Every structure is written in structure tokens, then in C-alpha cells.
């Protein structure tokens, strides 16, 4: 899921990238009689520790290969620059959304040959995660830890609002009505400032917006996924898979209308005022963790943050309800995965794949996932893994990932730009400056123009690229 790194960190990353490219070992990649496989991964803290333990297990399990694990911030930018200088690591941990862009730019090695030879394949994985690793008919990475999102809610705030804490919303209409009930505002009545539920305001008070938001039921833009992904809950398609962007698809329009309704209900200035009290994401300043937001859409990593920043918080989790009729009524979620890839130009691709193959073993994948409080992308899951898992919501996340309503972000090399445009549009709609139709029409025009440009380039180099990739498939 999208990590919310401050962007100035990426600037530091770019400056450091030149140095990172110089990190090639002076020993020529051999440690004693072992082949050294350099592995860059995005994780830090306990997540990095968990992978380090797995790497240590691998190094102990055989005597031919030594994997050297390095925790690297802004790994995508650094990898790209290291690959362009011809000195990439042998294995890198990216996000699944990097795959289309990086593969089309020739930064990755197709893994199909190794996958076929090692007996792996689509049956080995939950379908949505296998799908995320593929682009233009080739497989570019394999998942380490996957993610998807669900609705987390604060049971104490449910009780305080007179709601059943064991009965989270089941429909979108319930999500909205419970959200209004759980929203607390401070308003002046008869010369006194009083706190009441938004649901108990008079129609005049609601219209006037002369109140201060103290607690919010649910704020769509505060979530562990891109705000643009809400379209999935309204049946949106983002891309036709070929040459056409579908930004102003009916589902996206419905989702953006829904975003606007939140602002219309609470008021632009009131939401800006409430929003300005947010601090850094995934810290104690996040409203859900600070106890001022009752429901939030987040992923399986979220209990780690609750444990760290709000250990007393009494929470529950449930599928986030979708609009009527979407996905045939199946629970909807958006899936993304941490993946491991072999950059183009890696010195030891075979040894690198051997390590990647090791990570796909059920016992290894489950050890890593348990230590990071996540689940695995594998189609098989052991009872022992579920029984000993520290995250009480883990079964929910696994069932959501397997649901026919599980959606993958569009596999598009310009997704980053597409998403940036969708985010600007969402903000414009939420600030009531644009109608959803006008904001999304602008996205449609701009991103289509970009896709046309990328397509022209692909038309020029695509055949050559595909031939190159096919030639590589027997590695």
C-alpha cells in the first residue's frame, strides 16, 4: 500500500543514489567460495529485521550463495539510477505498482524461465497477486508480503455514539449514516458551546456549517490507500488494458460524487480545519490513532501502528462496504504487494532467483509474514500460521484478498502520473471548486495525452523489447 514518505526524503534518495550505484563489491561478488547476492529492500525497523532473519536462514541453509541484505529507503528511485549506471543489486524489493513502468523501461529481468523451471506458477498464488506481478505477458517479480484493505473501527467510539460495537456498517449507506452519527461537532446553542453528534444537528445548523469538527465518523481521504482507489467501491474501471484511459468512467464519477457529499455535509473550511490537525501519517497524530476518527480504511499492517501509537485502542475490522451491485455483492478490496525482482544487469541472476524461489516456500513466506504481522500471497495457508498469528484480523484480510471483489491497481506504466492527476481531481472536488465531471474530464484529457505519448514510444520499441524478453526466458 502507498507508504506516505515525505517527498523531500526522495530528494535525499536521489542525491544518495550516485553513491548507492558505487556500492558494488570490490571482491567482485564472491565471498570466499560463495557467490554474493546483493539484495536491496525498502523495509526498515522490525520489517527489515524480519527479512534479515529469513536471509540468515537462507545463508545457513546452503553453502553456495550468500545473500547480503541492505535496507534502502526510496528503493525504487535508487534502483532505477543504479540500473542506469549498470551497477544494480541482484535482487530488489519493490512495490507491485512499479512493475509496468520498470519493466517497460528495461530495468527488470523477466522471471518466466526460472518460474517454469522451478515449478512455480499461477496456482501457487492468490490470483490477484499473481496478476500484479505480470505485465505484457511476462512475469517480472514474485510477491513477498501482499496487502489489501479493510475498514478498521473504534469500538469505544461506537459505544459512545449508541451503536453496536460488534455491528460495523454492511452497506455504503450504513457507512455514511454511521459516519454522521459518529461525527461529533462543537456548536453554539443558547450562548453555550455544546458537543453533539452531527446526526442530531437541526437542518439549519447542518446547512450553516457554523460548528467545529471534534471527531469524524469517516473521512474518505484519510486512508491507507490512494484516494483515487475509491472508484473500485463504485465499480470503476480505470483503463481498458490497451490504449484508453477510463478516468471519467461512471464508477469514478459516482465515487467522486460521494467524496463531494462528505465535504458538502461538513463544510470545506471545517474539514480543512480538522485536517490541519493531522500530523505525519502512520504516527500518533493520525486521527484514527489519536481517537478523533471512528472508522478508517487501512491494511493488515495497521495493527502494528495501533500497537505502537495507541496500545489501548479497542478496535474491530470488517470489509469496507461497496455501492449496491458492485462485484456481485462480494466484498471489495484493493490489492497491492511487496515484490522481489531481479534488475536488468544483475551479475548473478540465477543465484538471485534461487533466493527468490526460497522466499516462495510456504514455511519461509509464513515466517516472514508472521513477523511482519501480514499474510502471504500463496494459495495455501497453514492452520499453524493462522492460529499463531499476532494480527486478530488476519483471516479477514486473507478472505478479502481471495474475494472475487479483490481489485488490482491498473497495470499501467504511467500509473504514478495517473494517480497524481486523480488525487488533484479528488482534492478539487472535495474543495467544491470543481464538479466531479469537470475534474475527471481534465484527468481524462491529460492522462490520455500521456498514454498516447507512451504508446507511441512503445510502438517504436515494443517489438524489439518483446523479442529481448522472449530471448531471456530460457535463462
Amino acid at each position, binding site marked *: 500500500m502507498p507508504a506516505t514518505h515525505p517527498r523531500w526524503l526522495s530528494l535525499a534518495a536521489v542525491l544518495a543514489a550516485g553513491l548507492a550505484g558505487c556500492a558494488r563489491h570490490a571482491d567482485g561478488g564472491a565471498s570466499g567460495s560463495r557467490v554474493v547476492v546483493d539484495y536491496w529492500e525498502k523495509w526498515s525497523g522490525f520489517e527489515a529485521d524480519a527479512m534479515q532473519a529469513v536471509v540468515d536462514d537462507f545463508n545457513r541453509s546452503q553453502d553456495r550463495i550468500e545473500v547480503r541484505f541492505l535496507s534502502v529507503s526510496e528503493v525504487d528511485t535508487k534502483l532505477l539510477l543504479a540500473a542506469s549506471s549498470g551497477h544494480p543489486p541482484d535482487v530488489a524489493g519493490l512495490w507491485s505498482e512499479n512493475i509496468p513502468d520498470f519493466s517497460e523501461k528495461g530495468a527488470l529481468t523477466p522471471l518466466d524461465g526460472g518460474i517454469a523451471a522451478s515449478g512455480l506458477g499461477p496456482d501457487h498464488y492468490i490470483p490477484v497477486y499473481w496478476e500484479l506481478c505480470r505485465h505484457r505477458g511476462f512475469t517480472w517479480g514474485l510477491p513477498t508480503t501482499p496487502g489489501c484493505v479493510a475498514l478498521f473501527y473504534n469500538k469505544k467510539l461506537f459505544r459512545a455514539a449508541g451503536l453496536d460495537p460488534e455491528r460495523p456498517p454492511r452497506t455504503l449507506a450504513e457507512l455514511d449514516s454511521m459516519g454522521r452519527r459518529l461525527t461529533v461537532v462543537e456548536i453554539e446553542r443558547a450562548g453555550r458551546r455544546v458537543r453533539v453528534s452531527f446526526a442530531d444537528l437541526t437542518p439549519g445548523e447542518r446547512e450553516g456549517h457554523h460548528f467545529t469538527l471534534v471527531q469524524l465518523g469517516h473521512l474518505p481521504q484519510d486512508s491507507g490507500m490512494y484516494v483515487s482507489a475509491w472508484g473500485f467501491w463504485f465499480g470503476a474501471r480505470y483503463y481498458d488494458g490497451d490504449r484508453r484511459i477510463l478516468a471519467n468512467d461512471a464508477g469514478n464519477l459516482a465515487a467522486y460524487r460521494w467524496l463531494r457529499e462528505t465535504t458538502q455535509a461538513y463544510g470545506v473550511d471545517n474539514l*480543512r*480545519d480538522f485536517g*490541519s490537525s493531522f500530523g505525519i501519517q502512520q504516527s500518533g497524530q493520525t486521527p484514527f490513532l489519536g481517537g478523533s476518527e471512528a472508522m478508517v480504511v487501512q491494511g493488515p499492517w495497521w495493527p502494528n501502528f495501533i500497537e505502537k501509537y495507541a496500545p489501548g485502542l479497542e478496535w474491530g475490522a470488517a470489509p469496507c462496504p461497496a455501492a449496491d451491485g458492485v462485484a456481485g455483492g462480494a466484498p471489495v478490496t484493493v490489492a497491492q504487494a511487496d515484490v522481489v525482482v531481479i534488475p536488468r544487469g544483475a551479475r548473478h541472476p540465477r543465484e538471485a532467483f534461487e533466493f527468490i524461489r526460497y522466499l516462495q516456500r510456504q514455511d519461509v513466506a509464513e515466517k516472514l509474514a508472521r513477523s511482519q504481522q501480514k499474510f502471504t500471497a500463496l494459495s495455501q495457508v497453514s492452520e499453524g500460521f493462522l492460529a499463531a498469528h499476532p494480527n486478530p484480523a488476519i483471516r479477514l484480510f486473507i478472505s478479502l484478498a481471495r474475494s472475487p471483489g479483490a481489485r488490482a491497481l491498473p497495470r499501467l506504466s504511467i500509473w504514478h502520473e495517473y494517480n497524481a492527476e486523480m488525487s488533484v481531481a479528488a482534492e478539487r472536488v472535495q474543495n467544491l471548486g470543481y464538479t466531479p465531471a469537470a475534474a475527471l474530464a481534465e484527468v481524462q484529457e491529460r492522462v490520455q495525452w500521456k498514454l498516447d505519448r507512451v504508446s507511441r514510444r512503445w510502438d517504436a520499441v515494443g517489438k524489439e523489447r518483446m523479442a529481448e524478453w522472449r530471448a531471456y526466458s530460457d535463462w
Partner: protein
Amino acid sequence: MTGDRRRTWLGLAFVSPWLLGVAAFTAYPVAASLYYSFCDYDVLSKPVWVGLLNYRDMASDSVFWKSVGNTLIFNLMALPLGLVASLALALLLNQPVRARGVFRAIYYLPSLVPAVASAMIWLWILNGRLGLLNTALGAVGVHHPPQWLGDPAWTKPSLAVMSMWGCGNTVVIYLAALQGVPRSLLEAAMIDGASAWDRLIHVTLPAISPVIYFNLIIGIIGGLQVFVSAFVMFGGPGPDRSVLFYAVYLYENAFEYRQMGYACAMAWMLCLLILALTWLASRSSRRLVYYQGE
């Protein structure tokens, strides 16, 4: 080899580390960026020559024009504000008062705070609900103070005010210039009955006009490249792209969208824009700047 030629070669040998450094880290990147600006280049694949396509794309890119507009508007606010405020501070700090050195140090100190750190400080000063500024405004009875960083209408003025935080360097330059104002002229004006204001307008300002002009040019060059404050404080283009400055959009294209060819073209356009504005400033100020030697 004659002695002169020998000395020339010896001199070149001594400066060769610098020459090599400039060639490798300045001249080559500058030349390469000019070439890439005519290419479709994503860093990884080979650059493909596309002629003027990047420049033509720029002309039809509405976000590019938004970034140009944002940068110019910001500069129209920040540049005069910075020039006037730093001159005013320099004039005050030039007064013969007790502990003048302490005051000078105090006003210079913020310039020593790293740009990222000062941006983080201002993030909390300008925070809409918890910020010092709005808390103070609330205390004096302003019930709905502006959302300085949340409302597109206020983001650029906020950054312009914030930019004055680092005016210590300019103040030091003005202070040095003020020391050089001929005392004889000031005394003559005083004997002729000129007021303090008249002396400022008719003696001090003309005498330091080359320095004001220098600060204006440096201000234009720096202002058009404004980057850190927006990048650190908003982590993106800001509300309704209101702080998407030229350099921020250039960075996005280069390192986030990996459109390095387009970013190089933007960099060259920025260079031309700075040259044009500097030329304009030097043309329009020719009659306003007084050089003592002339």
C-alpha cells in the same frame, strides 16, 4: 619550450583538478541536458531524438503553465517583501544603539537554520488548528483565521512571508553597503536641513543602489528556483496545485515520472526565463543605479 609556455603548462597543471571537476560535473551535465532536452529520455533506455517535441509539449501542458504562474506570483510577493524588509532591518541594525552586535546576530541567526528544518518549524507555526499564528489570532478574537496551508488562496502568501525568515544574508550585504555611504554627503545634506527621510531617499538609497540591484538579481535567480519550502511542507503540489512551483514540477517530471527529456527541456526554459528577467531588470534599472566610479 620557452619560459612563458612552460609557465602556462605548469599553471594549467596546477588548476587541472579544478578543470577536470568542472568538465565532469558541470560542463558535461550542462551539455548533456541540452542534448536530452531534444530527446525522449527516461534515464534507463537509450535517448530517442524527438526534436522540439518536449518544447512543444510544454506549450500545451496546462500544468506547466500553472507552475510558471505560481512561480511568478510567488516572486511578485516574496521579492519586494524580502528586499524592503531586509533593507529596513539593515537600516535599523545600522543605528548606533546599545548591543547592536547582539541584535545583528539575532536577526542573522535564522539564516543559519537549514532550509528543511526551518520549513518544518513553519509547518507548525502556520498549522491551521494547532499553529502558533492561529492560536495567537484566536487569542485576540479572530474566530475563523485562515487555513494558511490548507486554502489555495493562502498558500503562496504564507510561503512568501516565510521566505523573509532567511533574509539575514541580504541584511548583512546591505549593512556592508551602508557602511560605505559617504559620510561627507550625509553630513552635507544634514547641514542643508535634509530630514532623515530625505537623507535616506536622496543620499543613502542612491549610494547603495548597486547593492539593491545586486540583491534584486540574486533574488530573481533564487526566487525562480524556489523548491525546498514547497517540497518539504506540502509533499506534493499543495491544495489545487497552488504551490506547484517550476522547480517542483521539474523535479516531478525528472524523478517521479522519469520524463528526463521533458525535465531537461524545462530546465533550459528556466535558464532562458532567468536570463530574460535578469536582462529586463538590468535594462530597466540602468537609470536607477548609481555607480560612484562613473
